[in-house]
């Protein structure tokens, strides 16, 4: 037997005596992947998938929540959530080593990397197919969104549009990035879908691009010192006049488990309990925000972490008749899944700020319930996210930006306040609609309640000049904190990057 083995082996080996090529079995070589036109078409999905990272435990969303006045992460009753990274964010004591500041940065630049990659690959490809230009345009607008996020957070950022050039990226200021984003959107707009539908759900559409433009122009004065409210107004009007979007009758329709039919949501990140399932791409706010008794109420089997609560002063700022308060927060007597009151479990939404550091009790702090929790027992832990799609851009936001643009230009705001959809935003919340006498202060407060925990509060507070004020468990902070520090790990790999002023 040995002899046969020996001879067979000898012959086999002689032929492959010096061949050292690697054979890949369970991955794909890049050059092999794109031999197929279909794969290339679907490859833009890679860019949009990076958005799924937004609602994970430590990402840009939770970063923006924690540095604003709408959310707090106090030490809880068993001493968890005591890490300094949460203290640093709450108190605007930003340091280059803060983990969430790094993961927030990475969300932006992982997205840009993916967009550059997709755009480069499709442009290079010898395949020509219908809609190629549309796919490229969608990804370019997505890349513009990522640059918008990075510029909003960090101001002075590395700039790359071609991944094939491996030289270290230069650092560009806000003006440069602003101009780039505007140019990109302008040149892509003609190729984007104008009517929202199943094929462009979660992708960049005409409405999405215009909303992004509106947000850019609305913040231009804050960022660049150049007011562009007229352009913001024009962008909002483009969306309003398209008549593709409407304010839903019910506030919660936008946050339901199955909210894909909301006509108000303009740009969403689609999530799914089965398909978006890892700590990198699952929507798991229920783990962060609920305690074990809260979880029982929604038939959530996971062991939840009881960390994020509504900031008490923010909670107190609601009108008592505002139905968005109970739509977004759990407070008062709590009930179990079968509707029976839980003995002694009465949530106190307002508690002293001293407990931020020393530890709150289980029933202190209003808990989040804005995004409807699916109660089918499928929220089982860190790999099992929620199926609610997360709306980044909502039509209500467009209408409020429109009003703000008018107000800031000193124009009459009645063009906005007379709109039925505009009035519906407050009337569905049980409040009196705004009239043409509304003020910017009214608008900031209203935006807080309408968009609570949707991720825009930091940008709003900065634009309204309130970001460095003192608030619950936070003193006044220096002006330079309006920019985050560039994370130390990212500074170290690119000597072209200079730290932001103040850090």
């Amino acid at each position, binding site marked *: 037997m040995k002899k046969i083995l020996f001879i067979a082996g000898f012959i086999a080996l002689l032929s492959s005596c010096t061949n*050292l090529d*690697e054979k890949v079995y369970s991955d794909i070589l*890049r050059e092999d992947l794109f031999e197929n036109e279909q794969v290339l078409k679907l490859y833009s*999905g*890679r860019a949009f*998938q990076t958005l799924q990272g937004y609602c994970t435990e430590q990402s840009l969303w939770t970063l923006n929540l924690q540095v604003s006045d709408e959310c707090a992460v106090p030490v809880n009753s*068993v001493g*968890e959530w005591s890490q300094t990274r949460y203290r640093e964010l709450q108190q605007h004591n930003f340091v280059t080593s803060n983990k969430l500041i790094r993961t927030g940065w990475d969300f932006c630049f992982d997205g840009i*990397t993916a967009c550059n990659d997709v755009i480069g690959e499709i442009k290079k490809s010898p395949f020509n197919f219908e809609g190629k230009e549309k796919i490229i345009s969608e990804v370019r607008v997505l890349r513009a969104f990522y640059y918008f996020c990075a510029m909003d957070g960090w101001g002075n950022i590395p700039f790359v549009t071609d991944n094939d050039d491996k030289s270290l990226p230069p650092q560009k200021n806000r003006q440069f990035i602003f101009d780039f984003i505007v140019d990109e959107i302008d040149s892509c707009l003609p190729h984007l879908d104008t009517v929202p539908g199943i094929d462009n759900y979660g992708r960049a559409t005409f409405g999405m691009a215009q909303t992004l433009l509106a947000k850019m122009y609305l913040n231009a004065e804050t960022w660049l010192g150049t007011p562009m409210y007229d352009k913001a107004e024009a962008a909002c009007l483009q969306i309003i006049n398209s008549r593709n979007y409407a304010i839903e009758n019910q506030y919660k329709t936008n946050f339901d488990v199955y909210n894909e039919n909301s006509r108000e949501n303009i740009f969403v990140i689609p999530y799914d309990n089965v398909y978006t399932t890892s700590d990198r791409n699952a929507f798991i706010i229920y783990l962060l925000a609920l*305690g074990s008794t809260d979880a029982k109420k929604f038939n959530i089997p996971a062991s939840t972490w009881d960390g994020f609560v509504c900031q008490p002063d923010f909670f107190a700022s609601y009108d008592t008749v505002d139905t968005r308060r109970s739509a977004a927060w759990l407070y008062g007597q709590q009930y179990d899944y079968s509707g029976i009151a839980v003995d002694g479990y009465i949530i106190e939404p307002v508690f002293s700020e001293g407990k931020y550091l020393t530890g709150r009790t289980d029933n202190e702090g209003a808990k989040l319930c804005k995004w409807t929790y699916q109660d089918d027992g499928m929220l089982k832990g860190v790999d099992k996210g929620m199926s609610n799609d997360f709306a980044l851009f909502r039509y209500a936001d467009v209408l409020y930006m429109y009003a703000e643009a008018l107000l800031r230009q000193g124009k009459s705001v009645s063009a906005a306040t007379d709109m039925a959809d505009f009035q519906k935003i407050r009337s569905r919340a049980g409040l009196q609609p705004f009239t043409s006498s509304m003020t910017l202060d009214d608008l900031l407060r209203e935006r807080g309640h309408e968009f609570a925990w949707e991720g825009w509060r930091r940008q709003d507070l900065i634009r309204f000049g309130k970001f460095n004020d003192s608030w619950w468990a936070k003193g006044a902070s220096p002006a330079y904190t309006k920019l985050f520090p560039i994370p130390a790990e990212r500074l170290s790999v690119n000597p072209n990057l200079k730290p932001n002023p103040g850090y």
Partner: protein
Amino acid sequence: MKRKTIIYSLFILAGVIAGLQAQNQTKQLTGVVTDAATGEPLTGATIRIQGTSGGTTSDVNGKYSIEVSAPLSVLVFSFIGYQTQELQYSGAGTMNVALESDAKMLDAVVAIGYGTTTKKEITGAVSSLQAEDLNRGTFTNAAGLMQGRIAGLTVTNASGGDPSAQYEILLRGNNTLMAKRDPLIIIDGVADADIRNINFQEVETIDVLKDGSAAAIYGSRGTNGVIIITTKRAHSGTTRVEYDGQVSFQKVTRRAEPLSAEDFADVINNFKPSSAGNLYGASTDWFEEVTRSPVSHKHLFAISGGTKIFSHRTVLNVEQNQGIQQKNNADKYLFKTNIRQSILGGWLDLDYNATLSKRKYTPANNDIFRQAFFHNPTEPVYDPSNSKYGGYFTVQNTMDYYNPVAMLRERTAQYQNDFMEFNGRATLNIIPVDGLKWDNFISYKQERFNSKIYRTHYYPSIVGSDGEADIENTYSNQLQWESTVQYSHDFASLHSLQVLAGYTFLQGYDEGSSMYNQGYDFDIWLADNIGAGTGLVDGNGGLSSYKSSHRYISFFGRAIYNYDERYIASVSLRRDGSSKFGTNHKWGWFPAASIGWRINRESFLRSVKWLNDLKIRAGYGVTGNEGFGSYKSLLLMGGNGYVLSGGKWVNVYVPVQNANRDLRWEKKSEWNVGIDFSFLNNRLSGAVDYYMRDASDLLYEYEVSSPPWDYRTLFTNVGKLSNTGVEVLITGIPVRTKSFEWITTLTMAHNKNKLISFTNEEFYNAISEVGWIGDPINAYCQKLTEGGTLGSFFAPEYAGTGSDGQEIISVIKIKNVGSAYPDLTLGWSNTFTYKGFDLNIMIRAAIGGKIFNSYRAGYENITTLGLRNILSSWTDNTNFTGSVKYSEKYIEDATYMKIDNISLGYNFNVKKVLQSVRFYFAAQNILCLTNYKGVDPEVSLSGLSPGMESTSYYPRTAVFTIGTHLTF
């Protein structure tokens, strides 16, 4: 495969029978071996027949008995410290021999890779251990035999008392950042062998190629040194049946001490009344709840014998080992057979081996030890009213805090490893040309691993998931073919030449699959009915598989020239290729040269009687390290979840790494100079070596700017580091009389590690912090600094506890507290023999290393007291009431001395039925002398952040073994 196994078994059985018959033509020869000077009988002298491998040893009265088959046999009489005598068999029944004492040890055969030489001729730094030099006692695998025995070789059992633990082996410091760190292990010719697949009692010799000139013959796999293990082989001689049995008991000698339930309540009431809500009134010792007093036993049966043309050895090994953690078991079954044949009138020598091994084990869950340490001792174990958590007492709203007993009881883990190896060596002796032979070696091995884990409805971290089953399967195989031509010849009487040319081909495959599922109605199936869960359907299950391959090809040659046993020179060259390297660097050259000068052979020293050997050696060699995974140079795309596209969820493919066409081996060049000496009738001997090794092109996963890079890190060759050191080996025989002998051996090693560079123009890693300390500290404790030492601790200065109860830390004064690597490692072994008794005492020490005390940093402050327990040593400084801050306070001196091993044996002199009977007792890991306040200062030194004691540590145990060895 099954059928093949059966055929093979029959084949072996036939061979054994043939061997038993063959020995009938022999004659019995007896005699006495004595010391020529004193006339006293010599015990343990070896008597063998030249040209065969069989032999016997003399008993306590110097008497021996051997069977001689051919009338013209030459008998070889040898004994350590005496001149070997070769005598023609006269045909008479008795032969008495008087041996002259001399440098026999200098003729000991030393394996040098693809061949052998003798100790006196060696020119590289090679350490050899013979059977009598190996540690005694019980070991989880054969690596334990070397611990403390070889200067410069650090063998650490970092996993404590886990019976399936692996040793970490490090030679001459840490020579890499991220690639393979442990030496290449070659067992009976098979490269990259798994040391767990032999039995430690079967090891005959261990040779360690330490320096570059010696290891360069293994080219790109030689950097970390080469350990060549030779197991007991078939020998001609009478049929011998051996049995070795041992039983071991273990006891935990040191563990981290949390507050007892009583003290826990006292400390809370006196110092932290705000946590009084955490007092549940029970008194539970969680460590006791999850541990036991283990008993292990090991059995070995061997049968061997044969003739010059056909000999065999077959071993069966059965072990059942228990760990101190409940349910932690490791069983092992090993079958191994070796057959040697000489056919075609001596033209062709054949040597074939078959090994089958099965390991069945339940691994420890080390996290249970960590959870048990900090678990609140006033909590009861059970709470019958808590049906959701299966009746275990459970605190809600916690992260990473679980009932340890529930973790233990509600998880079932069954691991199995099946290993099979066949190899054959065919040596064609070109008889007309004396000394010329062509050797071909083929080995095929395969290994299957299967693990099944089931966590019930009540496993704490997954309550609500209705049970979880995990199954993992891996399979790997390796085909190795080696072809060498060797020629050795003595020209005239002064010149001797040994030339070797060879080719090696190695191909390996690895594949595996895993699956998990949740949502079971019953816990009864464990993981045996994995499809019964609902998880796979509703997204709480998963499937995966992978496959990879690698290929490794080499051409090599070596020439050793020896003039009058006075001047010796050796040169070697290897050309190595590996499929793992980038397309720009598929092949590399690995040259080496060394010389030796035996000064005692010079005429001016030949008359010095007390000088037995004095040799100066010098060598230089280039080796590589290709110990990293396949495909690291390629731009690979992998699946990464799903995205919604046109109403459907579709797969997403993303780059999983950056391409690097320049990826290559890490390169090491090494100078070594050494002296071998032996004085006073070989009563005092030893070696001193000095080495300088420079490793360059070190691999590291560099953070790169992404974009434009597709992936955030790039695996590439950048860094440089050096290790410089001195190794000393001294063996003395202070006493040697007729009945009493004392042999003492001291090994000492000093190594200085220096990271020369870590960045270049292209790749920056300005922040290269390693050694992450998790909650509550969240800091790195070590830094990679150019010009510094790997494993260097950096910490703020500590100035005591302030009046506010906080630690006083100077954030400005960050100090380099020192490196985890010891300045000096020592091994001191002593063997005493008195008549039939032998006593071995091994002491090991390490002087000067630093260690991060994770226990004190994590648990010696009362801020976490309440939900979690703390170290009882907090009560030594109750002024400290603040939260923990990282500082030099937690970096301690790791200097230790251990009485590692005491073994006592007695050999009975029996004549009937049994040839020999030995009883032995061993006590291992008995005493550790140290100032370190943690559990055990001997921790892993092989990683990039060495010297950090883990809080999930499996405690080391003192092991007491009794055993017997019978030879029939």
